């Protein structure tokens, strides 16, 4: 939308995931589902039809298991999903750089799922159901999505809203700092979250051992991966031909 808010300049939130620290415990996956009111699995759900805004891939490199958490990359350039959504249910939010998915506008044509190179989008194949009474434990800052709509990681945008409200209460304005659920949950602090506008966080991203997935496609992803081991990097970026298993 038109970026007319002079008062608070735009933030460009980004994430750095350290592959040497992640051990696939799944804290981030559970915390993400808890924070964003993602419904518990339908009895018939499988890994291919499941609702996980954040998936953790398991690979093998140099004989050891490597785990790779894959949230949405919030692609900044030529956002593939935004350019294909026929009714503008997807929008690269100018204030935060987050690719928003508005479930009320989404009619479930799933074209964005076909367009996403990272397959970071999931679809509500079933009506979301919670055990009786458990709806009291839903997060008020996130709305529940209906069956037949697509949903994706939005860097816990509900927490950005809460941070904006708290900052405004204190009279402040401008980009706010907040931590998404996965970053707060990670026992190994493997996920760091920050704003590319502030320099020392940005400096972290252009270190030699940090890289981005599929950046040859030119979609400008904003999630950087970091590893000191060349074997892990080769397995992840596909240079070496390991047998991947999802």
């Amino acid at each position: 939308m038109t970026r007319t808010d002079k008062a608070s300049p735009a933030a460009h939130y980004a994430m750095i995931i350290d592959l040497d620290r992640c051990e696939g415990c799944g804290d981030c996956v559970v915390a993400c589902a808890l924070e964003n009111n993602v419904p518990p699995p339908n009895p018939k759900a499988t890994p291919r039809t499941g609702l996980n805004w954040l998936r953790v891939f398991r690979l093998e490199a140099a004989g050891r298991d490597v785990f790779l958490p894959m949230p949405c990359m919030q692609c900044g350039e030529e956002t593939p999903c935004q350019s294909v959504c026929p009714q503008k249910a997807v929008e690269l939010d100018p204030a935060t750089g987050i690719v928003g998915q508005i479930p009320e506008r989404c009619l479930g044509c799933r074209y964005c799922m076909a367009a996403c190179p990272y397959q970071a989008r999931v679809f509500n194949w079933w009506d979301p159901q919670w055990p009786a009474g458990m709806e009291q434990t839903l997060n008020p800052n996130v709305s529940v999505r209906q069956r037949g709509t697509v949903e994706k990681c939005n860097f816990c945008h509900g927490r950005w809203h809460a941070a904006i409200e708290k900052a405004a209460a204190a009279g402040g304005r401008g980009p706010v700092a907040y931590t998404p659920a996965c970053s707060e949950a990670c026992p190994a602090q493997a996920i760091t979250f920050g704003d590319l506008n502030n320099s020392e966080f940005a400096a972290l991203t252009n270190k030699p051992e940090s890289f981005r997935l599929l950046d040859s496609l030119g979609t400008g992803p904003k999630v950087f991966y970091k590893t000191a081991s060349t074997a892990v990097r080769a397995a992840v970026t596909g240079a070496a031909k390991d047998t991947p298993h999802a």
Partner: protein
Amino acid sequence: MHSTHLIARGACRAPLPRFLMWIAPWVALFALGAYAMFLCLSQGLFHTNMDNRYAFGLWIFLDLTVIALGAGAFFTGFLLYVLHKKELKAVINSAVVIGLTCYSGAMVVLAVDVGQPLRAWFTYYHPNVHSMLTEVTFCITCYLVVLAIEYVPMLLKNRRLKLVPSFLVFEWELHKLMVVFALIGTLLSFFHQGSLGGLFGVLRGRPFAFREGLAIWPSTFFLFVLSAMAVGPSFVALTTWMVEKLARRPLVKPEVYDTLGRISGKLLLGYVFLKTVDTLLWINQTAPDRGFAAHRFYQHSAFGTWILFAEIALFGLLPAFILFQPKLRQRRGFLILAAVMACAGVTLNRFVLTIQTMALPTLPFDRFLSYWPSWQEFAAFGAIAAYAVLVYSFSYRYLTLFPQEREIALAEERS
């Protein structure tokens, strides 16, 4: 006033019981498909076997194919009304009915395929002009209206409706303006056939499908239009031949087949040439630039390089060659064989762009996944096929789809 008075004079149609026998299985298939659609709409799309990787499945593939084959309507109209190929007057009505059933069937399946059909009008109210799907939605619905308007004159010429004076006069006036609808139909079809191809050509995230192109239109845009125009006449010829076989009487003059075959052959040859150029460009330049060696797309056993050969050479070059030779084209058997192969070629092209694009992994650690549609998906599309056959059967019985039928019957009577 019993039913014979609905059938035009001089058109001998099967007696009612035999006609009911013919439509009974199709009605049954339609009922089964309607039930499957009801399940998907009322309970959810888990009834299909699609999943988060196969966001598009059988329905989108068959939609694309059916709309490509339904291109016969706009192209025959264009040839007849704009290029004045008078002999096509014999098949224009049949082509319009095919077009109408194909497009309306595809729209119904899209409504079921979409997760929230009640919000379908959002694409009109909040259009994203950069998306090819917006363009497809706009143009297909407009063209559906144009097809319906082209269907109305046939309807009003029914023996019973003809007796109402205002209908017949309105039909006469509308028929005079039919060239306007043919032109608009061609414009709309050019864009939505192209955009259906553009759907996949613009996907930066899917190197298998991504193509460079002209301005905002990827090369698949123009290839889809060309292939649709090439296969349209073949499909019209194919359907006319099938109806003749079912009705067990000649319905059109031989030169109609010849014209359809000739035009289809020329366009198919052009398409094959451009498709080959585009594929070579894609293998050597587009995919490698984006970091994906083209041979890796074909290393998975299910879709080897044979699929590329089949689509371009076997089902492209061969039918084009047959249709191009007048000697071969005269032989009805060869013409129909070439038509079938042309249709198969376009269907395979649509299959590759939808299903193979979904199957191939983009991330290095992701896997090639396969998918098999559920019975609900097959049944839903069975209903569309049944709907098309039913509408065509009723139109053939109660409306005059083939004006030359009486003339040929009388000529045969004389000899």
